[in-house]
């Protein structure tokens, strides 16, 4: 569901990768682009502003580790801030509150068509599998056949249902259900109410009186993942009147959405208990802020990768890289880089941690130099004299021939290596960027690689 926002952000980070360092100016531009993509994902304007402000505060003045790019540093900040917003202050609040004396009540509230009835049945099914004894209460007397719908679902999942008798009001069936729950062998009741507009005073007061009367320990707002900007106003009104305890995000199996989730959490700080992912009865999943944040960013395990690079960058290595940056990048530095890469483990593994299109990553991984290739490159470099490594322009035909013999390779291999070194040198002029280096190594280590 978060694909679109993910793609956009990746595009932005790609742009940022070309930058030398994180300046106020390039942050501004990036923030503007992030704003655009979050808007497209229906994150509420105010939530975006709040988010960008925090990102800005945290980014500016942040020291960029030498081997990391500003982009990587930025990703980390954006990601942790996203998790921050999506994680409720009180960790236990994402769990259902069980009443000290049964039955535990769950009151569902929301706009028309947000998926309350389907969610009610899914919740009953979820807790039934969990060993509870849930019952469903049909308290939607407005929509034609809403009761029948719940009835059909209840019989599908085989849980008891409490229906309004002729002339009974919504509040009355709720009260009756609560009173007789234990007799009906239910220690949990899920109250399905009618969809209502937040501006419909009489309907809002109906649900408020239900809540006041039966005092449910859980009042959950059911929100459609495809909702637009107005969801903030809606959820705020419901929250003010009902004191919600959480939300459930439905229809999360649609595409390109997720904005509503940020809007709701950012505005109300309500925990998200579940995410609805299909029309089937088992299509209800717990909500994991970190997973969703990663999904929003589409960054895969990039954080693991960044940490790995950070760990590998011992002081000495950093100094050498600094030197390389300050002066000219020569084959001695190239050798250092290569050894550092080898130390970090399989390049294939590393690539799989990079964000991006799986197909493209596979392509890179297939073409990336393997351990053997690394050893060969190292052998070539070691067959050179330190002087040759420092001044690669010395390498003429006869020297190349000697090096090829010394390293058990062909002179063409040496040319390939030199070509690669040239590319890298060009890159080094703009930035010192381990990840890009990885990619370039992967992409340019062999001449017959398909371009992408």
């Amino acid at each position, binding site marked *: 569901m978060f694909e679109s926002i993910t793609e956009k952000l990746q595009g932005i980070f790609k742009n940022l990768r070309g930058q030398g360092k994180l300046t106020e100016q390039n942050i501004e531009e990036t923030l503007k682009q992030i704003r655009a993509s979050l808007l497209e994902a229906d994150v509420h304007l105010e939530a975006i502003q709040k988010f960008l402000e925090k990102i800005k505060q945290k980014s500016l003045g942040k020291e960029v580790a030498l081997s990391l790019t500003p982009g990587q540093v930025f990703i980390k900040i954006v990601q942790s801030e996203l998790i921050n917003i999506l994680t409720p202050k009180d960790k236990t609040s994402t769990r259902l509150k069980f009443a000290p004396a049964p039955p535990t009540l769950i009151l569902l509230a929301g706009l028309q068509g947000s998926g309350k009835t389907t969610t009610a049945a899914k919740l009953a099914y979820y807790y039934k599998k969990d060993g509870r004894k849930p019952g469903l209460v049909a308290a939607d007397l407005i929509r034609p056949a809403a009761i029948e719908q719940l009835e*059909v679902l209840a019989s599908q999942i085989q849980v008891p249902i409490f229906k309004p008798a002729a002339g009974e009001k919504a509040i009355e069936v709720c009260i009756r259900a609560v009173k007789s729950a234990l007799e009906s062998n239910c220690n949990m009741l899920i109250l399905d109410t009618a969809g209502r*507009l937040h501006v419909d005073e009489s309907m809002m007061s109906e649900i408020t009186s239900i809540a006041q009367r039966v005092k449910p320990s859980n009042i959950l707002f059911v929100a459609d993942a495809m909702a637009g900007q107005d969801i903030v106003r809606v959820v705020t009104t419901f929250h003010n009147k009902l004191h919600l305890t959480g939300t459930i995000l439905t229809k999360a199996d649609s595409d390109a959405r997720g904005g509503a989730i940020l809007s709701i959490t950012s505005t109300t700080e309500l925990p998200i208990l579940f995410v609805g992912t299909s029309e089937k009865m088992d299509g209800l999943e717990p909500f994991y802020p970190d997973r969703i944040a990663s999904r929003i960013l589409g960054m895969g395990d990039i954080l693991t990768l960044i940490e790995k690079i950070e760990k590998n960058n011992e002081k000495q290595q950093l100094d050498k890289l600094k030197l390389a940056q300050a002066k000219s990048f020569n084959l001695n530095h190239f050798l250092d880089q290569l050894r550092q890469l080898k130390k970090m483990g399989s390049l294939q593994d590393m690539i799989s941690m990079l964000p991006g299109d799986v197909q493209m990553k596979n392509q890179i991984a297939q073409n990336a130099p393997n351990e053997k290739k690394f050893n060969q490159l190292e052998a070539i470099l070691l067959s050179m004299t330190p002087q040759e490594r420092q001044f690669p322009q010395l390498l003429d035909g006869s020297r190349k021939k000697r090096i090829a013999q010394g390293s058990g390779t062909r002179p063409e291999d040496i040319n390939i290596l030199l070509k690669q070194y040239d590319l890298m040198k060009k890159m080094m002029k703009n930035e010192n960027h381990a990840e890009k280096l990885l990619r370039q190594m992967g992409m340019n280590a062999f001449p017959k690689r398909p371009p992408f």
Partner: protein
Amino acid sequence: MAFFIEKLKRGLKKTADQISQSWNAVINYRTTPEIDFNKLEETLLLADISLQTTENILKTLKSRIESNSSKSNDSGFIVEQLRQILVDKLQINNQRGPLSESTIILLVGVNGVGKTTTAGKLAHQLTHQGRSVTLVAADTFRAAAEEQLTQWASRVKVDIVKGLENEAPATIIYKVLKNFSERTQTIIIDTAGRLHTRVGLMEELKKLVRVAEKMIPLTMLEKWIVLDANMGQNAIHQVEEFHQGIGLTGIVLTKVDGTAKGGIVISLADRFHIPIVYLGVGETMDDIIPFDAQEFVSALLPKAG
């Protein structure tokens, strides 16, 4: 009719208030008589108008103000220009004739947008226009969807055709159209809600349309997508997918009686040439009104001056 427009206006009043408040901030008469375009941008964005459309609107507005520099501080002129820009966007797609005498209206859309309710309200509206209307329940998936439509049928006193349990929607349509007589008739088909990302369900819908298109003249078939006004930018993807799949001929915008409406419609008009036919403004059978760009924008924006 006047009653309906009142209803729509009431529904849109909150939005209008919001925009009108913003106008006060946008045009600061006393101190610097300049338009705060950032503020205006915010206002449009908060109404779910996409960033791209918002930027287009502002660009057009700016150029109109520039070419009328004497009026650059005239708030009445600026509001009127904005109104005109929005109306133009909406009207360009809404040049369509009346429904053919015999019509089959297929209602499609994602889950929970109000297809069944719209079917019921439409049946009522079209019956009042002297048509003989039949409702067809082709949503065999959602529990009790048929019962919901049945209740609507008896409420608005029209006939209903139901499928057998688990019968394929295409089969139901086939049976209905096979008996489609020569007499003037209007058939409203309520289909199951389907997310545009569900390939199987979209294929099912395409099949249904193929069956219908083989059996009746194309001019008789209306394919309307029902959109929830509470939706954000995803409505664009929905229209895109459904349009590509079955070739939409109309849009019904529902739940316009809430707050902050209209934005997606304007963005949609920017991208697709699909007329908006009706607005849903409540839960009773009378709560449906034909779309009118002038009225819509008038209800959305404060009067010029």
